[in-house]
């Protein structure tokens, strides 16, 4: 996956780091800290004295929006703008001590859909900035189709969605020059922007879009930002980076986190182990556990084929029966395939099927372009050797279909190994339609 969300704190830090390059005529105080609990915040105040001198705003920094509507923005104790360091610390400790419910969508102020429940672990704390609604503006940029699109509005903050018709959209091809971009932006400033701010808005927007392009953001939004003469406040930010550009952006981005989103299930140790193996290998190893107690497990080679197998299982058996999704490809070594196969066999043999049926293992794949089938199957056979007893105890029927370099040997080897170990197996080559083993396995 190329586009990855980053924390608001990191987004602001990246802009602050390059501020003078993109916004030479504006000032930004960059008064912001990220903490995980109240004590960290209290300690941060020793160096960042503004934390004890100014009144504060605190909110979770965990990739989700609508924090105001979820009641997760602390900006008042008894009245707006009176939050002290002590109050912010105790609020963070309170909110991080137990799981919180968060709604991702609202109709008006009414939550819509189901809430995600998870711990809050990261908070961003900044000074409370008194300003008027007229000073709040909206700006964002992302890629739509083949173009980059800049969105600008004089209605910032929570009102931008209700007033989406007032948002100006300006599209630029990837090959647009800086001059072309600047000229087009200048001509497209929303008419509701206060006359005194028009030039400053244009200058800021040009710098913003340049930063979006040059720093390889996939999405960048400031909503709202506040313009007070040459002073800018970034009140709320959302950003995604194109992580494939990471190798060129090491210095530009600094140390940046790509956290998993709030409410996502914790990854199991098995999935983490496969991810770790994947990151160390030139080949690709992917595993997602969908329903560990389900009956049908897949061990499929190839990104496209794995999807086709999942589609077919869902069509013929329904997703209730599908335990996992995953794929291995790009010529993994024998030991990588063995590890991958053992991980799946281990998960699969932890319990018997609730209805007493045999479990099904689909070892599938299309006709490989360059992966050596016999070599990868050697790894799977070694895993069979180690798990044969458990497999027989649980009851597993194995269906194999594969083609490509050395496939005859691979198919013969796996058939012989299963027969030797007393495992049920059916083996097919390229003469059988790629997903036909799913039909055979599920209609028996």
């Amino acid at each position, binding site marked *: 996956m190329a*586009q990855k969300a980053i924390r608001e704190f990191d987004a602001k830090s990246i802009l602050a780091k390059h501020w003078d390059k993109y916004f030479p005529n504006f000032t930004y105080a960059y008064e912001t800290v990220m903490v995980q609990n109240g004590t960290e915040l209290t300690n941060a105040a020793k160096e960042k004295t503004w934390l004890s001198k100014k009144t504060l705003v605190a909110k979770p920094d965990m990739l989700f929006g609508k924090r105001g509507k979820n009641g997760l923005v602390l900006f008042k104790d008894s009245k707006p703008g009176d939050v002290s360091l002590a109050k912010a610390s105790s609020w963070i400790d309170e909110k991080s001590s137990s799981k919180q419910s968060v709604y991702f969508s609202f109709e008006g102020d009414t939550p819509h859909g189901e809430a995600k429940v998870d711990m809050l672990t990261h908070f961003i704390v900044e000074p409370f900035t008194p300003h008027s609604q007229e000073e709040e503006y909206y700006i964002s940029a992302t890629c739509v189709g*083949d173009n980059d699109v800049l969105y600008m509005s004089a209605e910032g903050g929570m009102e931008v969605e209700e007033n989406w018709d007032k948002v100006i959209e300006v599209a630029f091809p*990837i090959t647009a020059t800086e001059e072309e971009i600047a000229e087009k932006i200048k001509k497209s400033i929303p008419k509701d922007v206060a006359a005194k701010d028009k030039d400053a808005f244009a200058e800021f927007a040009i710098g913003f879009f340049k930063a979006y392009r040059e720093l390889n953001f996939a999405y960048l939004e400031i909503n709202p930002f506040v313009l007070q003469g040459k002073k800018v406040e970034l009140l709320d930010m959302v950003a995604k980076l194109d992580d494939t550009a990471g190798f060129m952006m090491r210095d530009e981005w600094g140390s940046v986190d790509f956290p998993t989103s709030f409410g996502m299930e914790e990854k199991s140790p098995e999935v983490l182990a496969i991810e770790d193996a994947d990151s160390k290998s030139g080949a690709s190893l992917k595993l*997602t556990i969908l329903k560990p107690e389900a009956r049908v497990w897949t061990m499929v080679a190839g990104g496209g084929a794995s*999807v*086709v197998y*999942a589609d077919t299982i869902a069509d013929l058996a329904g997703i209730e029966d599908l335990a996992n999704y995953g794929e291995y490809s790009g010529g993994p070594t024998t030991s990588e395939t063995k590890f991958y196969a053992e991980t799946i066999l281990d998960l699969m043999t932890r319990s018997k099927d609730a209805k007493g049926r045999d479990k099904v293992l689909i070892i599938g794949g299309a006709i490989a*372009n360059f992966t050596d089938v016999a070599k990868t199957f050697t790894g799977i056979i070694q895993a069979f050797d180690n798990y044969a007893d458990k497999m027989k105890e649980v009851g597993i029927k194995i269906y194999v279909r594969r083609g490509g370099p050395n496939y005859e040997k691979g198919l013969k080897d796996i058939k012989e190994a299963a027969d030797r170990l007393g495992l049920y197996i059916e083996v097919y080559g390229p003469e059988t339609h790629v997903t036909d083993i799913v039909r055979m396995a599920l209609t028996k």
Partner: protein
Amino acid sequence: MSQLFTRDTQAIFWNNNTTAIQRMLDYDYTIKRTKPSVAGIVAPTSNSKFDKFFYGPDEIMIPLYKNTAEAKAAQPQADALLNFASFRTAYDVTMEALELGGFTSIMVTAEGIPERLARKMNATARAKNVTVIGPATVGAIAPGAFKIANIGGTIENIVQSKLHRAGSCGLVTRSGGLFNELSNIIAINADGIAEGVAIGGDRFVGSVFIDNLLRMQENPEVKYMLLLGEVGGTEEYKVIEAVKDGRITKPIIAWCIGTIAKYYDSGVQFGHAGASANGDMETAEAKNRAMKEVGIHVPASFNDLPEIISALYHELHAEGIVKDITEPAMNTCPKVRKSKEFICTISDDRGDEATYAGFPISSLATPDTGKGIGDVVSLLWFKKQYPKWATDFIETVIKTVADHGPAVSGAHNAKVTARAGKSVVESLVTGLLTIGPRFGGAIDDAAKYFKYANDNGMNPAEFLNHMKKEGIPIPGIGHRIKSLKNPDLRVEGLKKYAAKCFPATPLLDYALTVEQLTTSKKENLILNVDGTIGILMVDMWRALGYTEEEINEFISSGTLNAFFIVGRSIGFIGHVLDEKRLAMPMYRHPMDDILYDVQVAEKI
């Protein structure tokens, strides 16, 4: 351009991926292409000039180049670039090739090129009307004509999937693995494919479904198309538009994989980076439904694809749109092949009669052939038929350098060895071993330094100054006794021949202006015989059309020295035979001719 590739298409392969290149050549051999599909390889870190590959049972050499510009200059006919650079450099390689021009298609294999760079690369190529296949692809194939790298897998699978000759389906997929699978399905249920492209799995790829389908619409060999899409993106809708507005009229079979994605939230990534639905319109279901609505043949599931292919094929066949195919003859690649340890490019003794660079020895040997030793040298040393003025010059050189009396170090050595009772060959080599920088080396050095001065536009005074700074006496200048007034007649002979027979002698002309300056300082600083030979050799090669680089290579590889070795061997053998006939005894050097100055070694 209605066809992506033809049987004449040749590629420059960026990165020496020997397995993939070998697969291409196996394919070429199987389908009986006349020229290999890889014309050259860019291997930036290799110091070799070529790499060996199998072509059927034999081996061929494919030239290696340091960079794309060099490769393109040497192989201007190669209009496909197969960019196998890593995700870090693939963008730069493509952009350089677009800048150079002359490529009609560029395939990019790297996965995970930064998105902005991929977009810029794709947009630049589009503006220049260059088809980009990929990034993140296994390639494309025009069966029976040209195949990119690993697409289609092993040669056995290619033949089994009928990818060795054109069928009637145009195939476009995102996935590379499923491309192979579909080729197989189409071969089983219909008559194979006419052209196929795996467009690549990254979010931003160069040529998209519609680009390829519109080309296939124009390609008369394509009778119907098969499109395999994926959940995510809106590219399939461009195809739907083209069907609606009549730009595509040929029948299309299509299926989008990833129907399962609807059951899970966005946390589960199915398949490729490009495969992630933003909104209902991008789901596989919606796309399959929309395609079906405009009359595209959409199966109920992937499992039903074979039936629908078979049905459409038989329908088109019944209508006479698809004709029966006569299976072409093919070559079979041997299963076991052994790489050759040695390479020979000058002569061949395998046939009826041994040949020198393609000429039977009998066609050169006897006087009636009109050929001399100069012709033999030109064939065996340069693999070219030099004109008579040049072969005559070579013979003149050999004759001129054949001997210079018994006192020179080589002749002396040969004589001493012969007197020790050693054989002709042993005595000869002791003589030859003295040939080097101080004996015979002036020919090489004269050619090298005079050419350098001339190439760099130095006037004689500047050249002298330059050599003074280098601390080297000018090679090829000076003689023990000869001077302008008492000229060396060997030199005069060479100059006279060159003036009469060479088309031009620019380096000699330059050397003579240098001689004017040196002789004005000292009488005997004339252009000597070594200098004249070296310089005239350069003029000969220039007149024969060699590039300056090739000539520099002749000089640095010791070719000039070789003329001296051949010539002087005649003289050395003469001295050895002379000793044998005279039956001279073992030689011992007189002690009174040696200065003995031996100190007692100090203790340290």
